[in-house]
């Protein structure tokens, strides 16, 4: 009898403790239970998320680390184990959905189609889609591309934009869809295309890698703006709040400018290239007014 009483006391004490904190659910519960958080990263999205000596680094990875710190704090798990999982543009959505990675920070555009499959954090970067061309090519804007070969990277918003522009305005461009940004630039460099349409930040990266960066120039009025965000599973408000809070706090902090400068205006590994890509007005506004909407929703 005495034993039974002791047991019931213990049980009620347990319940009381549980009711105290908010009940954990979704990804946070999974992380707490397993003691591991899995971060999805890219291998060559310079300077956002790429590998240097097998280690994922970049602008987005710095922000991902802020998120991990906040998860540790929320779960009171200072020794939370962090695992990095490489994703590609094709695997990133399913790997988030099936739980292989808990969230992904790379260079993923927040758009309506993807919102049907996954949830996005507040935006952390904003780009405009523009053109990279040789200084001597005579191309100043999209109108000059009529009848010419233009390269873009397969599966990007730029590909869709330029193909629909070509169909609507009957520009008679020949559009090449290369497999990645490196190959797109190779097509441009080898003379198969006169211009390379892509996110301006990525164009700056390719330009920095070129043998003679001064030969190249980014031109044209942006055809669209796109907001990059981190991806997580849908319908997981607890985890999304931890991620958004971490990003918002980072955006407000003085450290944000140094993170930006570190990746976009200083020499970066592995080769010490400098993107020389100052912060755009659009990004400044985005960081001042965080939103998880896609650019098309704004």
């Amino acid at each position, binding site marked *: 009898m005495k034993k039974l009483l002791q047991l019931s006391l213990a049980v009620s004490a347990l319940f009381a403790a549980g009711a105290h904190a908010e009940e954990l659910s979704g990804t946070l519960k999974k992380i707490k239970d397993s003691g591991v958080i899995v971060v999805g990263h890219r291998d060559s999205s310079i300077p956002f998320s790429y590998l240097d000596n097998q280690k994922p680094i970049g602008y987005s990875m710095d922000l991902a680390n802020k998120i991990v710190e906040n998860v540790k704090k929320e779960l009171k798990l200072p020794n939370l184990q962090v695992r990095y999982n490489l994703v590609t*543009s*094709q695997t990133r*959505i*399913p790997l988030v*959905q*099936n*739980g292989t990675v808990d969230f992904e920070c790379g260079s993923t555009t927040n*758009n309506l*189609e*993807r919102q*049907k*499959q996954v949830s996005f954090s507040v935006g952390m970067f904003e780009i405009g889609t523009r053109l990279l061309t040789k200084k001597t090519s005579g191309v100043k804007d999209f109108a000059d591309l009529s009848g010419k*070969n233009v*390269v873009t990277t*397969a*599966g*990007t918003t730029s*590909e*869709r934009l330029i*193909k*629909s522009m*070509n*169909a609507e305005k009957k520009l008679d461009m*020949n*559009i*090449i*869809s*290369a*497999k990645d940004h490196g*190959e797109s630039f*190779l*097509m441009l460099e*080898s*003379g*198969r*295309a006169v211009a390379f349409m892509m996110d301006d930040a990525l164009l700056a990266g390719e330009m920095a890698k070129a043998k003679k960066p001064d030969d190249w120039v980014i031109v044209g009025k942006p055809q669209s703006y796109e907001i990059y965000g981190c991806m997580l*599973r*849908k*319908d997981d408000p607890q985890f999304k709040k931890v991620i958004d809070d971490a990003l918002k706090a980072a955006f407000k902090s003085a450290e944000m400018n140094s993170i930006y400068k570190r990746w976009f205006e200083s020499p970066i590994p592995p080769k010490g290239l400098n993107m020389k890509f100052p912060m755009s007005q659009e990004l400044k506004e985005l960081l001042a007014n965080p939103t998880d909407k896609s650019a098309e929703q704004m």
Partner: protein
Amino acid sequence: MNYNWDWRVFFKPTGIGNEIYLDWFVTGLGWTIALALSAWVIALLLGSLLGVMRTLPGRYAARIAGAYVELFRNVPLLVQLFVWYFIVPDWLPEPLEDWFKQDLHPAISAFISVTICLGLFTAARVCEQVRTGIQALPRGQAMAAYALGLSLPQVYRQVLLPQAFRIIIPPLTSEFLNVFKNSSVASLIGLMELLAQTKQTAEFTANLFEAFTLATLIYFTLNMGLMLFMRWVEKRVRVPGLIALGGK
């Protein structure tokens, strides 16, 4: 896994012209078939020639064909494609190079590169099959033909090759199917064949599983169709007792 399935996605407008996503798959399939068939013609002709060379009595022909096989079989297909697409055009005389890179429609120049690349790659594999087929024939077959006064080309054309090809139809079938599968490397140099269209649909719609499921079904149906066709060919040319002879 909380994935949102939506099979109607194939009938949705792509936002480019008046196309729906299904149109992309049709276009892609067309490129895939055109690529594979053109590459197969090259592979079969060149591969047979090389296969014969490997069995000729003289040393030189056999060595040249042997070196060809080593080179084309051991360098990864992707590397070969890269060479044919990015490096070889630079060796052309200037006006031809400019024409190939700039005046020719990019899809056509990519098509030419992939066809040559895939044709020469597969030729090395066909060569080995043809050689095996010829060497599987009893020595007496060639001897009987020589004894009647047939010349070397006649012996190959009339006696050895008709038998060798019948023996190797099954392995040739699998090479034929491989050409279709391997033609997907074209997506890596921007030729919008079936795989490229699938990836593009997946990226644009975020309905990745639907896109790849449809592509799988198309590849599967295509392969089944080709296999049935090859079985039919095999049956049509079958000669009583020939296969049993192969092992003697």
